Protein backbone atom coordinates (compact mmCIF):
# COMPACT_ATOMS: atom_id res chain seq x y z
CA UNK A 1 0.00 0.00 0.00
CA UNK A 2 3.12 2.14 0.02
CA UNK A 3 2.51 4.31 -2.98
CA UNK A 4 -1.21 3.82 -3.03
CA UNK A 5 -3.06 7.12 -2.52
CA UNK A 6 -6.04 7.23 -0.15
CA UNK A 7 -8.45 7.86 -2.99
CA UNK A 8 -8.13 7.11 -6.66
CA UNK A 9 -10.85 9.24 -8.14
CA UNK A 10 -10.95 7.46 -11.45
CA UNK A 11 -12.05 4.28 -9.66
CA UNK A 12 -14.95 6.11 -8.13
CA UNK A 13 -15.81 7.63 -11.51
CA UNK A 14 -15.75 4.19 -13.12
CA UNK A 15 -17.90 2.59 -10.44
CA UNK A 16 -20.66 5.12 -9.87
CA UNK A 17 -23.41 2.73 -10.90
CA UNK A 18 -21.95 -0.03 -8.76
CA UNK A 19 -21.67 2.27 -5.74
CA UNK A 20 -25.26 3.39 -6.29
CA UNK A 21 -26.49 -0.22 -6.28
CA UNK A 22 -24.58 -0.97 -3.09
CA UNK A 23 -25.96 2.14 -1.45
CA UNK A 24 -29.53 1.19 -2.36
CA UNK A 25 -28.99 -2.36 -1.13
CA UNK A 26 -27.49 -1.02 2.08
CA UNK A 27 -30.38 1.34 2.69
CA UNK A 28 -32.90 -1.48 2.23
CA UNK A 29 -31.00 -3.94 4.42
CA UNK A 30 -30.50 -1.38 7.17
CA UNK A 31 -33.76 0.54 7.15
CA UNK A 32 -36.46 -2.02 6.41
CA UNK A 33 -35.63 -3.73 9.73
CA UNK A 34 -36.04 -0.39 11.52
CA UNK A 35 -39.43 0.06 9.91
CA UNK A 36 -40.52 -3.45 10.84
CA UNK A 37 -39.08 -2.87 14.31
CA UNK A 38 -41.24 0.22 14.65
CA UNK A 39 -44.33 -1.61 13.45
CA UNK A 40 -43.70 -4.25 16.11
CA UNK A 41 -42.55 -1.87 18.84
CA UNK A 42 -45.74 0.23 18.78
CA UNK A 43 -48.24 -2.54 19.47
CA UNK A 44 -45.85 -4.24 21.89
CA UNK A 45 -45.22 -0.93 23.64
CA UNK A 46 -48.94 -0.24 23.88
CA UNK A 47 -49.49 -3.69 25.33
CA UNK A 48 -46.70 -3.10 27.85
CA UNK A 49 -48.22 0.23 28.84
CA UNK A 50 -51.62 -1.36 29.25
CA UNK A 51 -50.33 -4.45 31.06
CA UNK A 52 -47.12 -3.31 32.81
CA UNK A 53 -46.20 -6.85 33.84
CA UNK A 54 -45.40 -7.68 30.22
CA UNK A 55 -42.64 -5.15 30.01
CA UNK A 56 -39.97 -6.71 32.22
CA UNK A 57 -39.86 -10.15 30.50
CA UNK A 58 -40.17 -8.64 27.02
CA UNK A 59 -37.39 -6.13 27.50
CA UNK A 60 -35.20 -8.84 29.05
CA UNK A 61 -35.62 -10.99 25.94
CA UNK A 62 -34.76 -8.17 23.58
CA UNK A 63 -31.78 -7.11 25.65
CA UNK A 64 -30.36 -10.61 25.46
CA UNK A 65 -30.88 -10.66 21.70
CA UNK A 66 -29.22 -7.27 21.49
CA UNK A 67 -26.19 -8.69 23.31
CA UNK A 68 -25.69 -11.48 20.77
CA UNK A 69 -22.92 -10.77 18.23
CA UNK A 70 -24.49 -10.19 14.84
CA UNK A 71 -22.10 -12.49 13.04
CA UNK A 72 -23.05 -15.37 15.32
CA UNK A 73 -26.74 -14.75 14.61
CA UNK A 74 -26.09 -14.67 10.85
CA UNK A 75 -24.38 -18.04 11.06
CA UNK A 76 -27.26 -19.52 13.02
CA UNK A 77 -29.77 -18.19 10.49
CA UNK A 78 -27.97 -19.25 7.30
CA UNK A 79 -29.36 -22.82 7.28
CA UNK A 80 -32.90 -21.42 7.38
CA UNK A 81 -32.72 -18.25 5.34
CA UNK A 82 -29.78 -18.94 3.09
CA UNK A 83 -26.36 -17.44 2.50
CA UNK A 84 -26.14 -13.95 1.04
CA UNK A 85 -29.86 -13.29 1.28
CA UNK A 86 -31.34 -10.04 2.56
CA UNK A 87 -33.44 -11.89 5.12
CA UNK A 88 -30.40 -13.36 6.90
CA UNK A 89 -29.10 -9.87 7.58
CA UNK A 90 -32.42 -8.18 8.13
CA UNK A 91 -33.84 -10.53 10.75
CA UNK A 92 -31.18 -9.80 13.40
CA UNK A 93 -31.24 -6.11 12.53
CA UNK A 94 -35.00 -6.11 13.13
CA UNK A 95 -34.45 -7.49 16.60
CA UNK A 96 -31.77 -4.90 17.31
CA UNK A 97 -34.10 -2.12 16.20
CA UNK A 98 -36.85 -3.54 18.34
CA UNK A 99 -34.50 -3.69 21.34
CA UNK A 100 -34.00 0.07 20.99
CA UNK A 101 -37.53 1.02 20.01
CA UNK A 102 -39.53 -0.95 22.57
CA UNK A 103 -38.07 0.86 25.61
CA UNK A 104 -38.37 4.26 23.94
CA UNK A 105 -42.00 3.55 23.06
CA UNK A 106 -42.83 2.45 26.59
CA UNK A 107 -40.90 5.39 28.10
CA UNK A 108 -42.70 7.77 25.78
CA UNK A 109 -46.09 6.41 26.73
CA UNK A 110 -45.19 6.57 30.41
CA UNK A 111 -43.88 10.12 30.10
CA UNK A 112 -47.34 11.43 29.26
CA UNK A 113 -48.28 13.55 32.28
CA UNK A 114 -50.72 11.93 34.64
CA UNK A 115 -52.99 14.95 34.39
CA UNK A 116 -53.36 14.31 30.65
CA UNK A 117 -54.21 10.68 31.26
CA UNK A 118 -56.74 11.56 33.92
CA UNK A 119 -58.34 14.26 31.84
CA UNK A 120 -58.69 11.80 28.96
CA UNK A 121 -60.27 9.19 31.20
CA UNK A 122 -62.62 11.76 32.68
CA UNK A 123 -63.78 12.76 29.22
CA UNK A 124 -64.79 9.22 28.40
CA UNK A 125 -61.81 7.59 26.73
CA UNK A 126 -61.56 3.87 27.46
CA UNK A 127 -58.09 2.48 28.26
CA UNK A 128 -57.19 1.36 24.71
CA UNK A 129 -58.73 4.34 23.05
CA UNK A 130 -56.83 6.63 25.38
CA UNK A 131 -53.55 4.84 24.65
CA UNK A 132 -53.93 5.07 20.89
CA UNK A 133 -55.59 8.47 20.57
CA UNK A 134 -53.89 10.43 23.35
CA UNK A 135 -50.80 8.75 24.79
CA UNK A 136 -49.33 7.40 21.55
CA UNK A 137 -49.46 10.73 19.69
CA UNK A 138 -48.07 12.43 22.77
CA UNK A 139 -45.21 9.90 22.72
CA UNK A 140 -44.23 10.64 19.11
CA UNK A 141 -41.17 12.74 20.06
CA UNK A 142 -39.85 9.79 22.07
CA UNK A 143 -40.54 7.39 19.22
CA UNK A 144 -38.63 9.57 16.80
CA UNK A 145 -35.73 9.91 19.20
CA UNK A 146 -35.64 6.11 19.39
CA UNK A 147 -35.86 5.83 15.61
CA UNK A 148 -32.85 8.08 15.20
CA UNK A 149 -30.71 5.84 17.39
CA UNK A 150 -32.06 2.65 15.85
CA UNK A 151 -31.64 3.86 12.24
CA UNK A 152 -28.09 5.08 12.64
CA UNK A 153 -26.93 1.97 14.47
CA UNK A 154 -28.69 -0.25 11.94
CA UNK A 155 -26.97 1.52 9.05
CA UNK A 156 -23.65 0.96 10.75
CA UNK A 157 -24.37 -2.67 11.69
CA UNK A 158 -25.62 -3.67 8.24
CA UNK A 159 -22.09 -3.62 6.83
CA UNK A 160 -21.23 -6.66 8.96
CA UNK A 161 -23.53 -8.59 6.61
CA UNK A 162 -20.78 -8.35 4.02
CA UNK A 163 -19.03 -11.16 5.88
CA UNK A 164 -21.80 -13.51 4.78
CA UNK A 165 -22.07 -11.90 1.39
CA UNK A 166 -24.90 -9.43 1.86
CA UNK A 167 -23.77 -6.22 3.50
CA UNK A 168 -24.45 -3.48 0.99
CA UNK A 169 -21.66 -0.95 1.26
CA UNK A 170 -19.89 -3.23 3.73
CA UNK A 171 -18.69 -5.23 0.76
CA UNK A 172 -16.41 -2.32 -0.15
CA UNK A 173 -14.47 -2.82 3.08
CA UNK A 174 -13.77 -6.46 2.34
CA UNK A 175 -12.92 -5.65 -1.26
CA UNK A 176 -10.55 -2.85 -0.35
CA UNK A 177 -8.93 -4.85 2.42
CA UNK A 178 -8.31 -7.94 0.24
CA UNK A 179 -6.81 -5.88 -2.57
CA UNK A 180 -4.94 -3.43 -0.27
CA UNK A 181 -6.74 -0.78 -2.21
CA UNK A 182 -8.10 1.94 0.13
CA UNK A 183 -10.34 3.79 -2.31
CA UNK A 184 -13.41 1.48 -1.93
CA UNK A 185 -12.98 1.58 1.87
CA UNK A 186 -13.04 5.37 1.90
CA UNK A 187 -15.99 5.44 -0.49
CA UNK A 188 -17.86 2.99 1.75
CA UNK A 189 -17.22 4.98 4.90
CA UNK A 190 -18.26 8.25 3.28
CA UNK A 191 -21.41 6.75 1.79
CA UNK A 192 -22.43 5.07 5.06
CA UNK A 193 -21.90 8.30 6.98
CA UNK A 194 -23.84 10.23 4.33
CA UNK A 195 -26.70 7.73 4.47
CA UNK A 196 -26.83 7.91 8.27
CA UNK A 197 -26.79 11.70 8.19
CA UNK A 198 -29.51 11.89 5.55
CA UNK A 199 -31.79 9.51 7.45
CA UNK A 200 -31.17 11.39 10.68
CA UNK A 201 -32.05 14.72 9.06
CA UNK A 202 -35.18 13.17 7.60
CA UNK A 203 -36.23 12.01 11.06
CA UNK A 204 -35.60 15.43 12.56
CA UNK A 205 -37.76 16.91 9.81
CA UNK A 206 -40.41 14.28 10.48
CA UNK A 207 -40.44 15.29 14.10
CA UNK A 208 -40.95 18.94 13.22
CA UNK A 209 -43.80 17.92 10.98
CA UNK A 210 -45.48 15.32 13.19
CA UNK A 211 -44.85 16.92 16.57
CA UNK A 212 -44.49 20.66 16.09
CA UNK A 213 -45.73 21.07 19.64
CA UNK A 214 -42.69 19.27 21.05
CA UNK A 215 -40.02 21.52 19.60
CA UNK A 216 -39.98 23.94 22.46
CA UNK A 217 -41.67 21.89 25.09
CA UNK A 218 -38.69 19.65 25.77
CA UNK A 219 -36.29 22.55 25.95
CA UNK A 220 -38.56 24.31 28.42
CA UNK A 221 -38.94 21.17 30.46
CA UNK A 222 -42.67 21.79 30.60
Amino acid at each position, binding site marked *: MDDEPIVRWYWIGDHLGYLGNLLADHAVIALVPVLIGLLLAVPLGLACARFPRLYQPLSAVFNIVYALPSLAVFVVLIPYTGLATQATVMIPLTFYALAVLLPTTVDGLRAV*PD*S*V*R*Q*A*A*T*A*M*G*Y*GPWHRLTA*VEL*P*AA*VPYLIAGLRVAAVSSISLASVGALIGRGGLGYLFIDGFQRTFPTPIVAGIVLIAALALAVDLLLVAARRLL*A*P*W*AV*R*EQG*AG*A
Partner: protein
Amino acid sequence: MIRFEGAGKRHPDGTIAVEGLDLEVPTGRITVLVGPSGCGKTTLLRMVNRMVEPTSGRVLLDGADVAKLEPAKLRRGIGYVIQQAGLFPHRKVIDNIATVPYLLGWDRKKARARAAELLELVGLAPETAKRYPFQLSGGQQQRVGVARALAADPPVLLMDEPFSAVDPVVRAGLQEELLRLQSELRKTVLFVTHDIEEAVRLGDQVVVLREHGRIAQLADPHTLLTSPADDGVAAFLGRDRGLRGLGLRPAKAVRLRPVGEGLRHGGWELVLDDDRRPIGWIDRAAGATDLQPVGGYRPDADTLRAALDAAVLSPAGVAVALDADGRALGTASREAVLAALTPVTMTKAEPAEPSASAGSAKSADPAAPEDPADPADPADPEEPADGADGGR
Protein backbone atom coordinates in the same frame (compact mmCIF):
# COMPACT_ATOMS: atom_id res chain seq x y z
CA MET B 1 -78.69 17.00 41.53
CA ILE B 2 -75.89 14.80 42.79
CA ARG B 3 -76.63 12.76 45.88
CA PHE B 4 -74.13 10.86 47.99
CA GLU B 5 -75.84 8.13 50.00
CA GLY B 6 -73.49 6.68 52.58
CA ALA B 7 -70.80 6.76 49.90
CA GLY B 8 -67.57 5.33 51.30
CA LYS B 9 -64.23 4.17 49.98
CA ARG B 10 -61.97 1.66 51.63
CA HIS B 11 -58.74 0.87 49.81
CA PRO B 12 -57.75 -2.76 49.25
CA ASP B 13 -55.08 -2.41 51.93
CA GLY B 14 -57.76 -1.57 54.46
CA THR B 15 -57.13 2.15 54.81
CA ILE B 16 -60.24 4.25 54.75
CA ALA B 17 -60.40 7.22 52.39
CA VAL B 18 -64.03 8.08 53.02
CA GLU B 19 -66.10 6.55 55.76
CA GLY B 20 -69.55 7.06 54.32
CA LEU B 21 -70.91 10.40 53.32
CA ASP B 22 -74.41 11.72 52.87
CA LEU B 23 -74.59 14.88 50.86
CA GLU B 24 -76.83 16.62 48.39
CA VAL B 25 -75.29 18.77 45.70
CA PRO B 26 -78.12 20.98 44.48
CA THR B 27 -78.73 21.55 40.79
CA GLY B 28 -77.48 24.80 39.33
CA ARG B 29 -75.36 25.69 42.35
CA ILE B 30 -71.71 25.62 43.29
CA THR B 31 -70.97 23.23 46.13
CA VAL B 32 -67.43 23.38 47.44
CA LEU B 33 -65.76 20.50 49.27
CA VAL B 34 -62.98 21.98 51.35
CA GLY B 35 -60.62 20.38 53.80
CA PRO B 36 -57.03 19.47 54.51
CA SER B 37 -55.23 17.00 52.26
CA GLY B 38 -56.26 13.47 53.04
CA CYS B 39 -59.85 14.37 53.91
CA GLY B 40 -61.09 12.42 50.92
CA LYS B 41 -62.44 15.34 48.93
CA THR B 42 -60.92 14.28 45.62
CA THR B 43 -62.04 10.71 46.21
CA LEU B 44 -65.59 11.94 46.70
CA LEU B 45 -65.43 14.06 43.57
CA ARG B 46 -64.25 11.11 41.51
CA MET B 47 -67.04 8.91 42.75
CA VAL B 48 -69.39 11.04 40.70
CA ASN B 49 -67.83 10.14 37.34
CA ARG B 50 -66.78 6.67 38.48
CA MET B 51 -63.06 7.35 38.38
CA VAL B 52 -63.35 5.98 41.91
CA GLU B 53 -65.90 3.30 42.71
CA PRO B 54 -67.36 3.54 46.21
CA THR B 55 -66.93 0.40 48.29
CA SER B 56 -70.08 1.22 50.24
CA GLY B 57 -73.15 3.31 49.62
CA ARG B 58 -73.87 4.90 46.27
CA VAL B 59 -73.87 8.10 44.29
CA LEU B 60 -76.97 9.22 42.43
CA LEU B 61 -76.99 11.60 39.52
CA ASP B 62 -80.47 12.97 38.97
CA GLY B 63 -81.82 9.94 40.76
CA ALA B 64 -79.85 7.34 38.78
CA ASP B 65 -77.17 5.26 40.47
CA VAL B 66 -73.98 6.11 38.57
CA ALA B 67 -72.69 2.56 39.16
CA LYS B 68 -75.35 1.38 36.73
CA LEU B 69 -74.31 3.77 33.97
CA GLU B 70 -71.64 2.99 31.40
CA PRO B 71 -68.50 4.92 32.51
CA ALA B 72 -67.57 6.42 29.14
CA LYS B 73 -71.12 7.58 28.49
CA LEU B 74 -71.49 8.94 32.01
CA ARG B 75 -68.21 10.85 31.76
CA ARG B 76 -69.03 12.47 28.45
CA GLY B 77 -71.97 14.08 30.23
CA ILE B 78 -69.88 15.44 33.09
CA GLY B 79 -67.33 18.22 32.69
CA TYR B 80 -64.08 17.68 34.56
CA VAL B 81 -61.40 20.24 35.30
CA ILE B 82 -58.18 19.43 37.15
CA GLN B 83 -55.27 21.28 38.66
CA GLN B 84 -52.73 20.84 35.86
CA ALA B 85 -55.38 21.40 33.18
CA GLY B 86 -54.35 18.11 31.58
CA LEU B 87 -54.55 19.49 28.06
CA PHE B 88 -53.47 17.15 25.29
CA PRO B 89 -50.00 18.42 24.32
CA HIS B 90 -50.28 17.25 20.73
CA ARG B 91 -53.55 18.96 19.94
CA LYS B 92 -54.18 22.59 19.17
CA VAL B 93 -56.29 24.52 21.62
CA ILE B 94 -59.36 24.38 19.40
CA ASP B 95 -59.16 20.59 19.12
CA ASN B 96 -58.48 20.22 22.82
CA ILE B 97 -61.69 22.07 23.52
CA ALA B 98 -63.58 19.99 20.97
CA THR B 99 -62.44 16.69 22.50
CA VAL B 100 -65.77 15.60 23.94
CA PRO B 101 -67.80 16.73 20.91
CA TYR B 102 -65.44 14.63 18.74
CA LEU B 103 -65.96 11.68 21.08
CA LEU B 104 -69.69 12.18 20.84
CA GLY B 105 -69.38 11.91 17.07
CA TRP B 106 -70.14 15.51 16.10
CA ASP B 107 -68.81 16.40 12.70
CA ARG B 108 -65.56 18.32 12.72
CA LYS B 109 -66.97 21.62 11.56
CA LYS B 110 -69.72 21.74 14.14
CA ALA B 111 -67.36 20.67 16.94
CA ARG B 112 -64.84 23.35 16.02
CA ALA B 113 -67.51 26.02 15.76
CA ARG B 114 -68.68 25.09 19.24
CA ALA B 115 -65.07 25.14 20.49
CA ALA B 116 -64.58 28.63 19.06
CA GLU B 117 -67.69 29.77 20.90
CA LEU B 118 -66.30 28.42 24.16
CA LEU B 119 -62.93 30.01 23.58
CA GLU B 120 -64.68 33.33 23.54
CA LEU B 121 -66.85 32.43 26.50
CA VAL B 122 -63.83 31.80 28.73
CA GLY B 123 -62.25 35.05 27.63
CA LEU B 124 -59.51 33.87 25.28
CA ALA B 125 -58.60 35.60 22.02
CA PRO B 126 -59.69 33.80 18.81
CA GLU B 127 -56.07 33.42 17.66
CA THR B 128 -55.44 31.21 20.70
CA ALA B 129 -57.34 28.48 18.83
CA LYS B 130 -54.36 27.58 16.67
CA ARG B 131 -51.80 27.48 19.47
CA TYR B 132 -50.55 24.39 21.23
CA PRO B 133 -50.96 24.12 25.00
CA PHE B 134 -47.25 24.65 25.68
CA GLN B 135 -47.55 28.09 24.13
CA LEU B 136 -50.06 29.22 26.76
CA SER B 137 -49.57 30.56 30.28
CA GLY B 138 -50.84 28.55 33.22
CA GLY B 139 -53.90 30.73 33.55
CA GLN B 140 -54.71 30.43 29.86
CA GLN B 141 -54.33 26.66 30.05
CA GLN B 142 -56.83 26.56 32.89
CA ARG B 143 -59.27 28.61 30.84
CA VAL B 144 -58.90 26.13 28.01
CA GLY B 145 -59.44 23.35 30.55
CA VAL B 146 -62.70 24.95 31.63
CA ALA B 147 -63.76 25.49 28.01
CA ARG B 148 -63.02 21.85 27.23
CA ALA B 149 -65.09 20.72 30.19
CA LEU B 150 -68.01 22.82 28.98
CA ALA B 151 -67.77 21.89 25.31
CA ALA B 152 -70.60 19.39 25.19
CA ASP B 153 -72.68 21.51 27.55
CA PRO B 154 -72.80 18.98 30.39
CA PRO B 155 -75.20 19.83 33.21
CA VAL B 156 -72.62 18.80 35.82
CA LEU B 157 -69.11 20.15 36.29
CA LEU B 158 -66.51 18.55 38.56
CA MET B 159 -63.57 20.78 39.43
CA ASP B 160 -60.61 19.39 41.35
CA GLU B 161 -58.44 22.24 42.65
CA PRO B 162 -58.56 23.77 39.20
CA PHE B 163 -56.96 27.07 40.15
CA SER B 164 -54.41 26.10 42.77
CA ALA B 165 -51.42 25.87 40.44
CA VAL B 166 -51.63 29.46 39.19
CA ASP B 167 -50.42 32.60 40.93
CA PRO B 168 -52.82 34.50 43.21
CA VAL B 169 -53.61 37.31 40.78
CA VAL B 170 -54.44 34.92 37.96
CA ARG B 171 -56.37 32.75 40.40
CA ALA B 172 -58.55 35.66 41.48
CA GLY B 173 -59.26 36.39 37.82
CA LEU B 174 -60.18 32.78 37.12
CA GLN B 175 -62.45 32.66 40.15
CA GLU B 176 -64.24 35.77 39.02
CA GLU B 177 -64.58 34.28 35.56
CA LEU B 178 -66.07 31.10 36.97
CA LEU B 179 -68.67 33.09 38.91
CA ARG B 180 -69.52 35.07 35.80
CA LEU B 181 -69.85 31.89 33.73
CA GLN B 182 -71.93 30.26 36.42
CA SER B 183 -74.31 33.20 36.54
CA GLU B 184 -74.97 32.54 32.83
CA LEU B 185 -74.78 28.77 32.68
CA ARG B 186 -76.16 27.60 36.02
CA LYS B 187 -74.32 24.30 36.07
CA THR B 188 -74.35 21.90 38.96
CA VAL B 189 -70.79 22.38 40.14
CA LEU B 190 -68.91 20.25 42.62
CA PHE B 191 -65.67 22.04 43.41
CA VAL B 192 -62.80 20.68 45.48
CA THR B 193 -60.20 22.91 47.12
CA HIS B 194 -57.98 23.07 50.18
CA ASP B 195 -58.18 26.86 50.15
CA ILE B 196 -60.92 28.09 52.47
CA GLU B 197 -60.72 31.55 50.94
CA GLU B 198 -61.55 30.10 47.55
CA ALA B 199 -64.31 27.95 49.04
CA VAL B 200 -65.99 30.93 50.64
CA ARG B 201 -65.59 33.03 47.54
CA LEU B 202 -67.05 30.52 45.09
CA GLY B 203 -69.43 28.33 47.03
CA ASP B 204 -73.16 28.68 47.25
CA GLN B 205 -72.74 25.96 49.83
CA VAL B 206 -69.50 24.97 51.48
CA VAL B 207 -68.83 21.54 52.92
CA VAL B 208 -65.96 21.53 55.39
CA LEU B 209 -64.54 18.01 55.56
CA ARG B 210 -62.44 16.33 58.21
CA GLU B 211 -60.37 13.19 57.72
CA HIS B 212 -62.21 10.21 56.20
CA GLY B 213 -64.69 12.51 54.52
CA ARG B 214 -66.64 13.36 57.64
CA ILE B 215 -68.60 16.55 57.36
CA ALA B 216 -67.50 19.10 59.95
CA GLN B 217 -69.94 21.71 58.71
CA LEU B 218 -72.20 22.30 55.75
CA ALA B 219 -73.32 25.89 55.37
CA ASP B 220 -73.45 28.88 53.10
CA PRO B 221 -70.24 30.93 53.26
CA HIS B 222 -71.70 33.65 55.41
CA THR B 223 -72.98 31.28 58.07
CA LEU B 224 -69.71 29.41 57.96
CA LEU B 225 -67.68 32.52 58.63
CA THR B 226 -69.95 33.98 61.28
CA SER B 227 -70.93 30.81 63.11
CA PRO B 228 -68.49 27.95 62.66
CA ALA B 229 -69.85 24.70 64.05
CA ASP B 230 -66.95 24.10 66.41
CA ASP B 231 -63.42 25.13 67.29
CA GLY B 232 -61.97 22.86 64.64
CA VAL B 233 -63.88 24.59 61.88
CA ALA B 234 -63.10 27.99 63.36
CA ALA B 235 -59.39 27.13 63.37
CA PHE B 236 -59.61 25.97 59.77
CA LEU B 237 -61.30 29.21 58.79
CA GLY B 238 -58.41 31.14 60.27
CA ARG B 239 -58.22 34.10 62.61
CA ASP B 240 -59.41 36.73 60.20
CA ARG B 241 -62.67 35.03 59.29
CA GLY B 242 -64.59 38.08 60.48
CA LEU B 243 -62.71 40.29 58.08
CA ARG B 244 -63.09 37.73 55.34
CA GLY B 245 -66.81 37.78 55.94
CA LEU B 246 -66.73 41.42 54.91
CA GLY B 247 -65.64 40.20 51.53
CA LEU B 248 -69.01 38.49 51.10
CA ARG B 249 -71.07 41.56 51.79
CA PRO B 250 -71.81 44.24 49.22
CA ALA B 251 -70.37 47.67 49.83
CA LYS B 252 -73.72 49.10 48.86
CA ALA B 253 -74.83 48.90 52.46
CA VAL B 254 -72.46 51.66 53.54
CA ARG B 255 -74.14 54.99 54.14
CA LEU B 256 -72.34 57.68 52.20
CA ARG B 257 -71.92 61.31 52.93
CA PRO B 258 -72.78 63.00 49.65
CA VAL B 259 -70.06 65.00 48.00
CA GLY B 260 -72.39 68.00 47.93
CA GLU B 261 -72.11 68.38 51.67
CA GLY B 262 -68.60 69.60 51.53
CA LEU B 263 -65.34 67.88 50.99
CA ARG B 264 -63.76 68.52 54.35
CA HIS B 265 -63.31 65.73 56.82
CA GLY B 266 -61.73 67.19 59.90
CA GLY B 267 -58.57 68.87 58.77
CA TRP B 268 -58.49 67.01 55.44
CA GLU B 269 -59.99 68.23 52.23
CA LEU B 270 -60.78 66.08 49.23
CA VAL B 271 -59.78 67.73 45.97
CA LEU B 272 -61.90 66.93 42.92
CA ASP B 273 -61.38 67.81 39.29
CA ASP B 274 -64.07 69.41 37.12
CA ASP B 275 -65.66 66.02 36.46
CA ARG B 276 -65.83 65.30 40.20
CA ARG B 277 -63.05 62.74 39.92
CA PRO B 278 -60.98 62.76 43.08
CA ILE B 279 -57.39 63.98 42.75
CA GLY B 280 -56.18 63.68 46.31
CA TRP B 281 -56.45 64.67 49.95
CA ILE B 282 -54.83 67.82 51.30
CA ASP B 283 -54.02 68.17 54.98
CA ARG B 284 -55.38 71.69 55.51
CA ALA B 285 -55.04 71.48 59.28
CA ALA B 286 -51.30 71.06 58.91
CA GLY B 287 -51.15 73.76 56.24
CA ALA B 288 -49.84 71.24 53.71
CA THR B 289 -50.30 71.72 50.00
CA ASP B 290 -49.27 68.33 48.71
CA LEU B 291 -51.85 65.77 47.65
CA GLN B 292 -52.18 62.43 49.37
CA PRO B 293 -53.57 59.43 47.50
CA VAL B 294 -57.27 58.66 47.60
CA GLY B 295 -58.62 55.28 48.68
CA GLY B 296 -61.57 54.56 46.44
CA TYR B 297 -64.11 51.78 46.01
CA ARG B 298 -67.18 51.03 43.91
CA PRO B 299 -70.35 50.70 45.98
CA ASP B 300 -72.09 48.87 43.14
CA ALA B 301 -69.35 46.30 42.56
CA ASP B 302 -67.10 46.05 45.58
CA THR B 303 -67.52 44.40 48.95
CA LEU B 304 -67.46 45.85 52.44
CA ARG B 305 -63.93 44.55 52.69
CA ALA B 306 -62.83 46.74 49.80
CA ALA B 307 -64.62 49.73 51.30
CA LEU B 308 -62.98 49.21 54.67
CA ASP B 309 -59.63 48.72 53.00
CA ALA B 310 -60.04 52.00 51.12
CA ALA B 311 -60.93 53.80 54.33
CA VAL B 312 -58.00 52.29 56.22
CA LEU B 313 -55.57 53.26 53.47
CA SER B 314 -56.87 56.80 53.13
CA PRO B 315 -54.81 59.42 55.04
CA ALA B 316 -58.04 61.08 56.11
CA GLY B 317 -59.55 57.79 57.26
CA VAL B 318 -62.29 58.22 54.70
CA ALA B 319 -63.02 56.05 51.68
CA VAL B 320 -64.29 57.68 48.52
CA ALA B 321 -67.14 55.94 46.77
CA LEU B 322 -66.75 56.09 43.00
CA ASP B 323 -69.10 55.42 40.13
CA ALA B 324 -68.15 53.38 37.09
CA ASP B 325 -66.48 56.42 35.51
CA GLY B 326 -64.38 57.17 38.56
CA ARG B 327 -66.46 60.12 39.73
CA ALA B 328 -66.92 60.63 43.45
CA LEU B 329 -70.39 59.66 44.68
CA GLY B 330 -69.72 60.36 48.31
CA THR B 331 -67.45 59.56 51.17
CA ALA B 332 -67.51 56.91 53.85
CA SER B 333 -65.51 57.02 57.04
CA ARG B 334 -64.12 53.91 58.67
CA GLU B 335 -66.88 54.18 61.21
CA ALA B 336 -69.50 54.41 58.49
CA VAL B 337 -68.18 51.24 56.87
CA LEU B 338 -68.25 49.40 60.18
CA ALA B 339 -71.70 50.74 60.94
CA ALA B 340 -72.95 48.97 57.83
CA LEU B 341 -72.19 45.70 59.59
CA THR B 342 -73.86 45.90 62.91
CA PRO B 343 -77.60 45.89 62.51
CA VAL B 344 -77.95 43.63 59.50
CA THR B 345 -75.19 41.08 59.79
CA MET B 346 -77.36 38.11 60.60
CA THR B 347 -80.24 38.62 58.23
CA LYS B 348 -78.65 36.62 55.44
CA ALA B 349 -77.99 33.52 57.42
CA GLU B 350 -80.73 31.05 56.63
CA PRO B 351 -79.35 27.65 57.49
CA ALA B 352 -82.52 26.01 56.20
CA GLU B 353 -81.83 27.21 52.65
CA PRO B 354 -78.11 27.82 52.64
CA SER B 355 -77.49 27.89 48.94
CA ALA B 356 -80.19 30.38 48.09
CA SER B 357 -79.03 32.96 50.57
CA ALA B 358 -75.39 32.61 49.71
CA GLY B 359 -76.09 33.23 46.08
CA SER B 360 -77.13 36.74 46.80
CA ALA B 361 -74.07 37.49 48.84
CA LYS B 362 -71.77 36.90 45.91
CA SER B 363 -73.41 38.37 42.89
CA ALA B 364 -72.27 41.70 41.64
CA ASP B 365 -75.56 43.45 42.23
CA PRO B 366 -77.23 41.54 45.00
CA ALA B 367 -80.80 41.96 46.01
CA ALA B 368 -79.63 42.45 49.54
CA PRO B 369 -82.29 41.71 52.09
CA GLU B 370 -81.47 44.78 54.09
CA ASP B 371 -82.43 48.10 52.62
CA PRO B 372 -79.21 49.47 51.20
CA ALA B 373 -78.39 52.88 52.45
CA ASP B 374 -79.46 55.72 50.29
CA PRO B 375 -76.30 57.59 49.39
CA ALA B 376 -78.24 60.83 49.38
CA ASP B 377 -79.51 60.39 52.91
CA PRO B 378 -78.23 63.43 54.76
CA ALA B 379 -79.59 62.36 58.12
CA ASP B 380 -76.69 60.14 58.90
CA PRO B 381 -75.69 60.41 62.52
CA GLU B 382 -72.27 58.95 61.84
CA GLU B 383 -71.01 61.64 59.60
CA PRO B 384 -70.35 64.65 61.80
CA ALA B 385 -68.63 62.47 64.35
CA ASP B 386 -66.09 61.05 61.97
CA GLY B 387 -65.36 64.35 60.34
CA ALA B 388 -64.74 66.10 63.60
CA ASP B 389 -61.80 64.09 64.79
CA GLY B 390 -60.04 63.87 61.50
CA GLY B 391 -57.67 66.76 62.26
CA ARG B 392 -55.52 67.36 65.26
